[in-house]
């Protein structure tokens, strides 16, 4: 403190309130080595407020023209000194009271926290960890099934479900054949919506939605089998669940930042429609599709042809497909060719058509009979093990 000796023993006029009443009186104060000396009476010991126990009404800055000081030793009491001289001297003797010191003191834990958060995010990203995937894999089957029902319900709002009995029977056969080749002991449910869009979606709880447009665009049962196996691959990898958990997490984070009442999560079907899977996810689904088709003795050529045809069509008239489902599968990334080559190369085993000619035409006619989606409170009963 000796370096500040020029600041000591100057007297300042001040107003002192003891904090018991709202009255105040004029007194004199002095800055000393030990603290602020409050000279209550001309004679007698001054009251000392040590620098370390002080607080000011506002952080001290270079612009300060006065200072209101309190001391934790004497709660309620205030000392008000006018003029910039006292405030500036106090800023030197008690530097913890300056605005920059106070700001750094309250911000530094959070600054380190922010650095740690960013570092952790980078690590999670670099190590390819997915917290959303972990949460998705911990969801009980019932919750996943409920999510799936809601997604299908909101996707099919205003549309009908195709449920011609013989068509459903054929679809059941195809689903059964592929599902039993999945290794995973999971029941898959497949629904066809009366919807002209050419698309297919995996939805939570091992559900797959196909559209009438897709059935019409397909040139044979092997093509549908390929698409279905690809979507099953997404389902096995819990991609739809992961996507929804991530979207919900983002929505919750947004609510946290902006304040809200959960309205953003209203329509999870729309959320899923807008999801697009990463290239890695598409690659994983392709791998599953190849393996399922091989196990089920269905040729992967159909899948490859459909893939090729659709990506050409997509290239000509972009925007024909949504971002989810097939849109992602067929998006015109440079590696589409690579993926196509991988699927084509997977051939070379004995295969039989995915469905008989008769079953295929039954399946194509599944939308001959439709019912409003709202009547389908429970998923159709063609669960296949």
């Amino acid at each position: 403190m000796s370096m500040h000796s020029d600041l000591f023993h100057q007297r300042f006029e001040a107003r002192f309130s003891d904090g018991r009443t709202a009255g105040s009186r004029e007194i004199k104060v002095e800055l000393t080595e030990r603290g602020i000396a409050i000279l209550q009476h001309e004679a007698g010991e001054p009251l000392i407020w040590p620098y370390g126990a002080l607080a000011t009404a506002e952080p001290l800055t270079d612009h300060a023209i006065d200072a209101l000081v309190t001391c934790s030793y004497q709660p309620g009491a205030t000392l008000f000194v006018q003029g910039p001289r006292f405030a500036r001297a106090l800023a030197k003797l008690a530097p913890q009271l300056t605005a920059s010191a106070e700001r750094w003191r309250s911000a530094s834990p959070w600054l380190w926290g922010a650095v740690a958060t960013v570092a952790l995010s980078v690590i999670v990203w670099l190590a390819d960890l997915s917290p959303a995937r972990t949460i998705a894999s911990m969801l009980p089957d019932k919750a996943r099934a409920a999510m799936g029902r809601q997604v299908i319900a909101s996707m099919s709002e205003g549309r009908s479900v195709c449920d011609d009995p013989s068509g459903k029977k054929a679809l059941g056969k195809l689903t059964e054949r592929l599902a039993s080749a999945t290794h995973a002991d999971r029941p898959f449910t497949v629904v066809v919506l009366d919807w002209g869009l050419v698309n297919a979606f995996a939805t939570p709880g091992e559900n797959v939605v196909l559209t009438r447009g897709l059935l019409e665009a397909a040139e044979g049962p092997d093509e549908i089998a390929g698409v279905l196996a690809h979507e099953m691959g997404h389902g096995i990898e819990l991609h739809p669940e992961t996507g929804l958990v991530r979207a919900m997490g983002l929505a919750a984070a947004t609510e946290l930042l902006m304040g809200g009442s959960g309205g953003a999560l209203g329509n999870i079907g729309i959320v899923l429609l807008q999801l697009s899977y990463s290239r890695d996810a598409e690659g994983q689904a392709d791998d599953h599709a190849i393996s399922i088709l091989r196990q089920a003795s269905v040729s992967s050529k159909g899948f490859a042809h459909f893939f090729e045809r659709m990506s050409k069509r997509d290239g000509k008239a972009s925007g024909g497909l949504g971002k989810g489902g097939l849109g992602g599968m067929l998006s015109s990334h440079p590696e589409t060719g690579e993926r196509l080559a991988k699927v084509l190369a997977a051939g070379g085993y004995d295969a039989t058509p995915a469905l008989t000619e008769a079953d295929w035409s039954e399946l194509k006619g599944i939308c001959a009979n439709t019912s409003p989606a709202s009547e389908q409170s429970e998923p159709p009963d063609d669960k296949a093990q």
Partner: protein
Amino acid sequence: MDTQTTKCQPAPGVHLDLSWLPPIGMIGLSVANFVYRLLTLGIYDFWARTEVRKRLWSAIRLDGEPLVYTGTGKELFLGFLIVFGVVLLPILFVSVAAILVFGPNSAAANLVQAAIYLGVVVLFGLGIYRAQRYRLLRTSWRGIRGSLEGRSMPYATTYFLTMLLIPVTLGWIIPWRTTKLQSMITNDARFGSEPFAFRGSSGPLYAPFAVLWFGVLALFFAASMISGIVIGTIQGALGPGGEPSEAIKQVYGLALLAVFALAYLFYLFMSAWYRARTINHFADCTFIDNARFNGRLTGAGLLWIDLTNLAILAAGSLIVMALAVAIGGLIVTIAGTIVPAGSLTPDEVTAYAATIAAPLLVVITVLSFTLLLPVTQARSMGYLINNLSLEGTLDVDKISQSTADPMATGEGLAQAFDVDAF
């Protein structure tokens, strides 16, 4: 002069001069707070708000001595965490659960959503009262604290029920409602041992309200009529069946826009005028000891402060956006030189940049408007204090410390609810 004093004895107490000492360095504070908020991913906001309050409170002088804000950023932060955990998260959970259980857009889910909205409105009143209580408890002058010694539920109930009546009464309950709510807060407020009192009714507000109400109606009809005349004139000039050209359509649009912009400006002025009348009336009705507040706000004064504040916020936003674009451009340029040639196609680089930039841009846009918020807050509060005075006397030696225990009302976990996280 009141009856307690005789001619020979002066009234007990002193006149206290209420004044505003404009805070210096608010722009520097704004910039520092903004930078710290960005670097701490927003969490510093609670401490930033606290420092702004300390500066603003300090600028309010009573008898030359500053008001002191004793709240801390930590209290605001804990209050937010508790409200988030106890109110916001359950609301989020219940809405999502209702959608999952009953289905989206089902009657039951909509019912749950409606119930949540109603509940939030009740919480609104609760939040206003409790925020007021926290602020008063954390405000002191000469070491004497303020307090709000009442319960928040009656206020919240009044707030909610009278709000339901606003559409039913075509708005005519508003003067009565705001006066009732203001009197509830004022009559619960204390400065140390000294209670505030609200003496007055909503009566004097009804004439200005009628002017506002009929004024808005007249404005609407006038604007509609003038635009009708504009359209009619152009149609008439074209003759029957004449198809207006693009240029004429643009003139149409501009003329209509001008009419409605003018009408809106008129509306802003009228509502500012009504707001000034309300604040003055409330000030005049607020008593403490032998003193009473007096308000001299004007509609033009309020409107000027509001409009210039808006311009200041917009200027701050522009500065932030320009800086963000410059820094973003710099980062993309640096990234372009670091990424090895050929590993990513230009399309992919653009796609990656857009993925990262889009959410950041939204955050920066929203935040950018808050850059100079402290400056505008200081201007608003300065205008208010400069146009308020305290008439009469206060017996300051008689006013003792609040009987409300500062520990019990300030630091306890249950009281953390009182923190104004709303």
